[in-house]
C-alpha cells in the first residue's frame, strides 16, 4: 500500500511555499479590499466610443471635486470594445455622482455617458460587514469543531479531529488569500462580495471533505485497534483516495472549469479562486488534516527540536 503519511513534512513545506508568497504580498501591499469591505465608490461608465478620456484628466476632475486617492481603469464592454471606464474613489453620494457625470460630459465633449454600475458603500457599514463576516466564520468554525467532537465521541481523542479539521480549513482559507493576493498583484483582483462567497464555499466544502476522510479513520479504528495510528490513518486515506479524486473532479474540475472558461467575465475571478480553493480543500484533507492527526498522536513536536539540535 502507498505510504502517503510518511512524507508528511514535505506536504507541510509545500503548503507553506504556496501560502508564504501570498502573505508577503499582503503584508507589503495590504489586503486588496474592494469597496464592499472598506467603503468607497465604484463608478463604471459606458462611453459611446472607444475615445476614452485620459486617465489623468479623469483624476484631475475628481481632485477638483475634492476626491483624493482615485483609481481609473479601462475595461472591455459587452460589444468587446474598450469603451468602459471603471473609477474607484472614496465614498460619494448620488448627488455628487450626477454632478460629476454631468461635468464629464461637458469636459470631455461626450453627449451620452451611461452609468453601468454605481456602488457606493459608507465606511461604517463596510467595517461592520467585515468584522461580522470574520465573526461568522469564527462561530461556524467553532460549531464545526464541537459537532465533529460530538460525532466522533466513540473513538479516542475526538476533539483532535475537530481541531485538525479546522486547522486544515484555515490552511485552505490562507491558500485562497494567497492566490487572491497574487491575483491582485498581476490582474488587479479585489476582495469583494464575490470573493467572500468563494471563500464561504471553500470553507463549506473543506469541512465536508475532511469529515469524509476522518469518517474512514473512525470506521477502521473499530476493527483495526491493534494497528499503530499512523498505519491506520494511512490505510484510511488510501481507501478514500478514489472517492476524493472523483468528487474533486466532479465538483471542481468539471463544474468550475466550465464556469471559468465559458462563464461571463464577471465570474472568471470567482471561478479561479473557487477552483484553487476547492482543490486545496481536497488536498488538505489528505495531506494536512490526516498527517496533523498523526503528528498529534505521536506528539512529534517533542522531537522537532531534538532533530534540529542533532543537525546543528
Amino acid at each position, binding site marked *: 500500500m502507498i505510504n502517503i503519511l510518511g512524507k508528511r513534512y514535505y506536504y507541510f513545506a509545500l503548503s507553506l511555499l504556496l501560502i508564504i508568497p501570498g502573505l508577503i504580498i499582503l503584508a507589503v501591499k495590504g489586503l486588496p479590499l474592494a469597496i464592499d469591505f472598506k467603503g468607497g465608490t465604484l463608478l463604471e461608465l459606458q462611453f459611446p466610443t472607444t475615445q476614452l478620456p485620459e486617465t489623468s484628466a479623469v483624476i484631475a476632475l475628481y481632485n477638483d471635486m475634492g476626491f483624493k486617492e482615485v483609481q481609473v481603469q479601462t475595461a472591455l464592454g*459587452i460589444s468587446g470594445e474598450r469603451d468602459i471606464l471603471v473609477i474607484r474613489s472614496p465614498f460619494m*453620494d*448620488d448627488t455628487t*455622482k450626477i454632478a460629476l457625470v454631468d461635468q464629464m460630459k461637458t469636459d470631455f465633449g461626450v453627449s451620452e455617458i451611461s*452609468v*453601468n*454600475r*454605481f*456602488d*457606493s458603500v*459608507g465606511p461604517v*457599514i463596510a467595517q*461592520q*460587514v467585515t468584522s*461580522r*463576516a470574520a465573526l*461568522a466564520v469564527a462561530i*461556524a468554525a467553532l*460549531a*464545526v469543531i464541537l*459537532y*465533529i467532537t460530538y*460525532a466522533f465521541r466513540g473513538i479516542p481523542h475526538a476533539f483532535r479531529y475537530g481541531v485538525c479539521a479546522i486547522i486544515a480549513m484555515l490552511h485552505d482559507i490562507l491558500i485562497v488569500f494567497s492566490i487572491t493576493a497574487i491575483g491582485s498583484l498581476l490582474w488587479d483582483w479585489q476582495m469583494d*462580495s464575490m470573493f*467572500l*462567497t*468563494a471563500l*464561504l*464555499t471553500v470553507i*463549506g*466544502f473543506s*469541512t*465536508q*471533505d475532511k*469529515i*469524509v476522510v476522518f*469518517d*474512514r479513520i473512525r*470506521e477502521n479504528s473499530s476493527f483495526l485497534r491493534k494497528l499503530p495510528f499512523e498505519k491506520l490513518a494511512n490505510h484510511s486515506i488510501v*481507501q*478514500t483516495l*478514489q*472517492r476524493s479524486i*472523483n*468528487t474533486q473532479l*466532479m*465538483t471542481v474540475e*468539471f*463544474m*468550475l*472549469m*466550465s*464556469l471559468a*472558461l*465559458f*462563464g*461571463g467575465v*464577471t*465570474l472568471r475571478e*470567482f471561478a479561479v479562486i473557487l477552483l484553487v480553493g476547492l482543490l486545496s480543500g481536497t488536498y488538505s484533507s489528505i495531506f494536512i488534516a490526516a498527517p496533523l492527526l498523526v503528528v498529534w498522536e505521536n506528539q512529534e513536536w517533542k522531537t522537532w527540536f531534538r532533530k534540529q539540535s542533532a543537525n546543528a
Partner: protein
Amino acid sequence: MNRRYVNLIIILLLLALSIWIDLPSNPGIKIGSFERSLETVLGLDLRGGMQVILSVPSEIAVTQQNLQDAAQILENRSNALGVDEVVYQTAGERIIVGEYPGASNAEDVIGKIKETGQLEFVDFGDVRVPEGTVVETDFGLSASAGAEATPTVEVTPTTEATATAEATPEATPTETTSATRYHTVLTGANLKSVSVVRGQLNDYTVALEFDSEGADILKEWTTANVGKILGIVLDKAVISSPSVNNPIPDGQAEIIGSFTNESANALAVQLRYGSLPIPLEIEQIRVIGPTLGQDSLDKSLLAGIIGFGIVMLFMGIYYRVPGVVADLAIIFYALITFAIFKLVPVTLTLPGIAGFLLSTGSALDANILIFERLKEELRNGRTMRQAIDLAWRRAWPSIRDSNIAALITAAILFWFGSTFGASFVKGFALTLALGVGVSLMTAFTVTRTLLGLVVDLFKDPEQRPGLFGL
C-alpha cells in the same frame, strides 16, 4: 406489494409534481390561503437594479417596531414609483435594505427616500375629522427633497404655504372622504421642536414649539378661531384633530388628550420626523446594469449546462450502471431543488447559484461515496444484494456528518447575512442548505430504489462486473 415499488411510485409522483412546478408556464398555485405565483425570482445581480442600504444614526434609540414601520413606509412610497416590485427589509437592529429590481435611475429612488413626510396644520372648522382620514388641503406642493440625507422636518419645501387652491395630482389621494378642500394654516416647516410632557396626574401632553414666523401665524389664527379644530395632517392623512381651547400667543402649543406615554411619544415622533418614525442615512447604493447581469446569467447558464453534461458523462463512463442511475438521481435532485426554490420562493443570485452548485457537488459526492463502497464490497466477494445494503449502511455516517457540518455552516452564514443586509451571503446559505437537504434525500431514496430495481433487471449481476465499473 414490494416496498421498492411503493418507493418508486412516491418518487415518480414527487418528480411529476416538481416538473409541473418547474414548468415556466405554470400559472401558480392557490390552495386556500396559500398562494404562490411560481415565477422564478432573479436577484439584482442577475436582472439588474438597485440596492440601497439605510441605517439609523448610532445616537438615535430605535426599536424593532420603528425599523419595521420605516421599512414599510419606504416600501409603500417607493412602489408609487411604478418600477417593478420594490422590497424593503430590516436587517439587524439599525439597518434597512431596499431593493429595486430593474431600476437604474438612482436619482428617482433616492429622491423618494429622502422625501420628507409633509406635516400640515389644517383648519377643519368645526369638524373633528377622525384619525387616518385622507383629506385634501390647499397646500400646493408635495414635499421635495433638499440636500439633506435625513428625513427630518427641517428639510422643507422652498415654496411657502400659500392659499392657492392647487393640489398636485400625485399628492391627491384617490379616496378623499369629502370633497372639501381644507385650508393649511401652517406646515411642519415652522415647527421648531416637539416634546412629551408628563403632568402631575400622570397625564401626558405633547408640547410643540414654533419658530417666530409660525408663532405669528398661529397667534393670529387661534385668536380668531377659539373652539375650532386645528387638524394635524401628515402626507394628507389626519393624525390628530385637537381643538383650540385658548389663543396661542407665543408659539408654544400643547396638545392635550387622553394620551398614554406610548401614544404621546408616537405622536411626537410623527411630528418630529415626518412620516418616518426614525431618521435614516444612506449607507450604500448599488446600481447594477441589467445588460451586465444578463450577460453573466446567459454565460453562467451555458457554463453550468456544459459542466453538468461532462459530470453526467463521467459518472456514466466510470461507474457504469450505478453511474447512470446516479445521473438520473442528480436530475431528480436538480428538478426537486428548483421546484423548492420556486415554492419558497428563493431569490436567485450568483452566490445563490454557487451555493446550489456546491450542494450539487455534495449530492454527487454522496453517490460517489456509496459507489466506491459498493465496489469494495463486491471485490470482497459479497453478492450484489448484500453489497448494495452494506454500501449504503457504511457510507451513511460520512454522508450524514459531512452534510450536517455543511448545514451548520449554512445556518450561521444565513444568520450573518440576514443581520447585516448582506443578501448575497444569505442567498448562498439558503440555496446551500436546501440543496444539501434534498441531496441527502435523493442519494438515500432515489439512487437506492432505482439501483435496486435496475439490478433486478440483470440475471446474475455478480457475473458481469463490467456493468459496475469493476
